[in-house]
Protein backbone atom coordinates (compact mmCIF):
# COMPACT_ATOMS: atom_id res chain seq x y z
CA UNK A 1 0.00 0.00 0.00
CA UNK A 2 1.13 3.57 -0.61
CA UNK A 3 -0.74 6.88 -0.48
CA UNK A 4 0.46 7.73 -3.97
CA UNK A 5 -0.79 4.44 -5.43
CA UNK A 6 -4.23 4.10 -6.92
CA UNK A 7 -4.20 0.34 -7.36
CA UNK A 8 -2.53 -3.00 -6.61
CA UNK A 9 -2.61 -5.87 -9.08
CA UNK A 10 -2.10 -9.26 -7.49
CA UNK A 11 -1.48 -12.57 -9.25
CA UNK A 12 -1.84 -15.69 -7.08
CA UNK A 13 -0.82 -18.98 -8.71
CA UNK A 14 -2.58 -22.06 -7.36
CA UNK A 15 -1.92 -25.78 -7.79
CA UNK A 16 -4.47 -27.32 -10.17
CA UNK A 17 -5.81 -30.84 -9.74
CA UNK A 18 -5.22 -31.90 -13.33
CA UNK A 19 -2.97 -31.38 -16.35
CA UNK A 20 -4.22 -32.17 -19.86
CA UNK A 21 -7.08 -34.09 -18.31
CA UNK A 22 -4.82 -36.22 -16.08
CA UNK A 23 -5.30 -36.04 -12.29
CA UNK A 24 -2.41 -34.37 -10.43
CA UNK A 25 -1.81 -35.54 -6.85
CA UNK A 26 0.65 -32.78 -5.89
CA UNK A 27 3.51 -30.65 -7.20
CA UNK A 28 7.12 -30.58 -6.05
CA UNK A 29 9.15 -27.39 -6.60
CA UNK A 30 12.92 -27.07 -6.54
CA UNK A 31 15.03 -23.94 -6.96
CA UNK A 32 18.64 -22.98 -7.53
CA UNK A 33 18.15 -20.55 -4.70
CA UNK A 34 20.90 -17.99 -5.14
CA UNK A 35 20.37 -17.65 -8.87
CA UNK A 36 16.58 -17.69 -8.57
CA UNK A 37 16.65 -14.72 -6.21
CA UNK A 38 19.06 -12.92 -8.52
CA UNK A 39 16.87 -13.48 -11.58
CA UNK A 40 13.74 -12.44 -9.65
CA UNK A 41 15.51 -9.23 -8.61
CA UNK A 42 16.44 -8.56 -12.26
CA UNK A 43 12.83 -9.04 -13.37
CA UNK A 44 11.59 -6.62 -10.70
CA UNK A 45 14.15 -4.01 -11.78
CA UNK A 46 13.24 -4.47 -15.45
CA UNK A 47 9.55 -3.97 -14.61
CA UNK A 48 10.37 -0.85 -12.59
CA UNK A 49 12.32 0.53 -15.54
CA UNK A 50 9.51 -0.25 -18.03
CA UNK A 51 6.47 1.01 -16.11
CA UNK A 52 5.67 3.74 -13.56
CA UNK A 53 5.18 1.34 -10.66
CA UNK A 54 6.05 1.89 -7.02
CA UNK A 55 6.02 -1.39 -5.13
CA UNK A 56 6.59 -4.97 -6.22
CA UNK A 57 6.15 -8.21 -4.29
CA UNK A 58 7.52 -11.40 -5.83
CA UNK A 59 7.19 -14.61 -3.81
CA UNK A 60 7.76 -18.23 -4.80
CA UNK A 61 7.62 -21.36 -2.66
CA UNK A 62 9.66 -24.53 -2.98
CA UNK A 63 9.05 -28.03 -1.67
CA UNK A 64 5.88 -30.12 -1.85
CA UNK A 65 2.59 -28.35 -2.58
CA UNK A 66 -0.86 -29.93 -2.48
CA UNK A 67 -3.70 -29.14 -4.88
CA UNK A 68 -5.09 -25.68 -4.08
CA UNK A 69 -1.92 -24.43 -2.40
CA UNK A 70 -0.09 -21.30 -3.59
CA UNK A 71 3.38 -21.58 -5.18
CA UNK A 72 3.66 -18.01 -6.44
CA UNK A 73 2.35 -14.55 -5.57
CA UNK A 74 3.09 -11.36 -7.47
CA UNK A 75 1.77 -7.96 -6.44
CA UNK A 76 2.38 -4.60 -8.09
CA UNK A 77 1.30 -1.23 -6.71
CA UNK A 78 1.12 1.75 -9.05
CA UNK A 79 -0.50 5.16 -9.32
CA UNK A 80 -2.69 3.85 -12.18
CA UNK A 81 -4.05 0.38 -13.05
CA UNK A 82 -2.64 0.07 -16.59
CA UNK A 83 0.93 0.00 -15.29
CA UNK A 84 -0.03 -2.36 -12.47
CA UNK A 85 -1.75 -4.86 -14.80
CA UNK A 86 0.99 -4.73 -17.46
CA UNK A 87 3.87 -5.02 -15.02
CA UNK A 88 2.25 -7.85 -13.09
CA UNK A 89 1.69 -9.80 -16.30
CA UNK A 90 5.28 -9.12 -17.43
CA UNK A 91 6.69 -10.33 -14.12
CA UNK A 92 4.87 -13.67 -14.02
CA UNK A 93 5.49 -14.32 -17.73
CA UNK A 94 9.21 -13.57 -17.41
CA UNK A 95 9.54 -15.50 -14.15
CA UNK A 96 8.30 -18.58 -15.95
CA UNK A 97 11.03 -18.18 -18.59
CA UNK A 98 14.15 -17.18 -16.70
CA UNK A 99 13.96 -18.00 -12.97
CA UNK A 100 15.73 -21.33 -12.21
CA UNK A 101 12.80 -23.03 -10.46
CA UNK A 102 11.54 -26.45 -11.50
CA UNK A 103 8.13 -28.06 -11.04
CA UNK A 104 7.50 -31.80 -10.96
CA UNK A 105 3.95 -33.03 -11.40
CA UNK A 106 3.09 -36.17 -9.41
CA UNK A 107 0.42 -38.42 -10.93
CA UNK A 108 -1.11 -41.74 -9.80
CA UNK A 109 1.14 -43.63 -12.22
CA UNK A 110 4.32 -41.54 -12.20
CA UNK A 111 5.83 -38.08 -12.23
CA UNK A 112 6.96 -35.56 -14.85
CA UNK A 113 9.33 -32.60 -14.80
CA UNK A 114 7.29 -29.90 -16.51
CA UNK A 115 8.69 -28.51 -19.80
CA UNK A 116 11.75 -30.76 -19.70
CA UNK A 117 11.00 -32.62 -22.92
CA UNK A 118 9.58 -31.35 -26.21
Amino acid sequence: MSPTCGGIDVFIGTVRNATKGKAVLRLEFEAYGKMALKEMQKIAEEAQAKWPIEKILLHHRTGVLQVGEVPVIIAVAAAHRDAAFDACRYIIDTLKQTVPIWKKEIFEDGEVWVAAHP
Partner: protein
Amino acid sequence: MKVKVLAFGIAKDIFGSSSTAVELSGEATVEALRTALEMQYPRLKQLSSFMIAVNDEYAEAGQELAPEDEVAIIPPVSGG
Protein backbone atom coordinates in the same frame (compact mmCIF):
# COMPACT_ATOMS: atom_id res chain seq x y z
CA MET B 1 40.43 -28.93 -16.23
CA LYS B 2 37.99 -30.76 -13.96
CA VAL B 3 34.64 -28.94 -13.72
CA LYS B 4 32.11 -29.65 -10.99
CA VAL B 5 28.58 -29.13 -12.35
CA LEU B 6 25.61 -28.63 -10.01
CA ALA B 7 22.35 -30.23 -11.17
CA PHE B 8 18.68 -29.47 -10.59
CA GLY B 9 15.37 -30.81 -11.75
CA ILE B 10 15.53 -33.51 -14.39
CA ALA B 11 19.31 -33.04 -14.71
CA LYS B 12 19.66 -34.39 -11.16
CA ASP B 13 17.79 -37.52 -12.26
CA ILE B 14 19.97 -37.84 -15.37
CA PHE B 15 23.21 -37.45 -13.37
CA GLY B 16 21.84 -39.61 -10.57
CA SER B 17 23.26 -37.02 -8.20
CA SER B 18 22.98 -33.33 -7.34
CA SER B 19 26.30 -32.72 -9.04
CA THR B 20 28.79 -34.35 -11.36
CA ALA B 21 32.38 -33.82 -12.50
CA VAL B 22 33.45 -33.39 -16.12
CA GLU B 23 37.04 -33.38 -17.39
CA LEU B 24 37.73 -30.77 -20.10
CA SER B 25 40.98 -31.60 -21.89
CA GLY B 26 41.18 -28.76 -24.44
CA GLU B 27 39.86 -25.22 -24.01
CA ALA B 28 37.60 -24.79 -20.98
CA THR B 29 34.63 -22.94 -22.43
CA VAL B 30 30.90 -23.24 -21.76
CA GLU B 31 30.46 -24.74 -25.24
CA ALA B 32 33.14 -27.38 -24.57
CA LEU B 33 31.45 -28.20 -21.27
CA ARG B 34 28.08 -28.57 -23.04
CA THR B 35 29.59 -31.02 -25.54
CA ALA B 36 31.33 -33.01 -22.79
CA LEU B 37 28.11 -33.19 -20.73
CA GLU B 38 26.13 -34.45 -23.71
CA MET B 39 28.75 -37.13 -24.41
CA GLN B 40 28.86 -38.24 -20.79
CA TYR B 41 25.05 -38.07 -20.42
CA PRO B 42 23.36 -38.67 -23.83
CA ARG B 43 19.90 -38.30 -22.22
CA LEU B 44 20.59 -34.57 -22.01
CA LYS B 45 20.12 -34.38 -25.76
CA GLN B 46 16.49 -35.46 -25.39
CA LEU B 47 15.67 -32.38 -23.32
CA SER B 48 13.98 -29.56 -25.19
CA SER B 49 17.03 -27.48 -24.21
CA PHE B 50 19.35 -26.72 -21.31
CA MET B 51 21.40 -23.73 -20.27
CA ILE B 52 24.61 -23.46 -18.29
CA ALA B 53 25.02 -20.96 -15.48
CA VAL B 54 28.34 -19.69 -14.19
CA ASN B 55 28.39 -17.92 -10.81
CA ASP B 56 24.58 -17.55 -10.81
CA GLU B 57 24.41 -16.02 -14.27
CA TYR B 58 23.35 -17.61 -17.58
CA ALA B 59 26.57 -18.11 -19.54
CA GLU B 60 27.35 -17.57 -23.23
CA ALA B 61 28.81 -20.41 -25.30
CA GLY B 62 32.21 -18.77 -25.69
CA GLN B 63 32.67 -17.90 -22.04
CA GLU B 64 35.88 -19.25 -20.47
CA LEU B 65 35.58 -21.31 -17.28
CA ALA B 66 37.88 -20.73 -14.31
CA PRO B 67 38.65 -23.35 -11.63
CA GLU B 68 36.91 -21.36 -8.89
CA ASP B 69 33.70 -20.76 -10.90
CA GLU B 70 30.42 -22.24 -9.63
CA VAL B 71 28.93 -24.00 -12.62
CA ALA B 72 25.38 -25.39 -12.89
CA ILE B 73 23.30 -27.03 -15.57
CA ILE B 74 19.88 -25.40 -15.94
CA PRO B 75 17.28 -27.68 -17.60
CA PRO B 76 14.08 -26.04 -18.89
CA VAL B 77 12.67 -23.99 -16.02
CA SER B 78 9.07 -24.35 -14.89
CA GLY B 79 8.42 -22.02 -12.00
CA GLY B 80 5.18 -20.16 -11.35
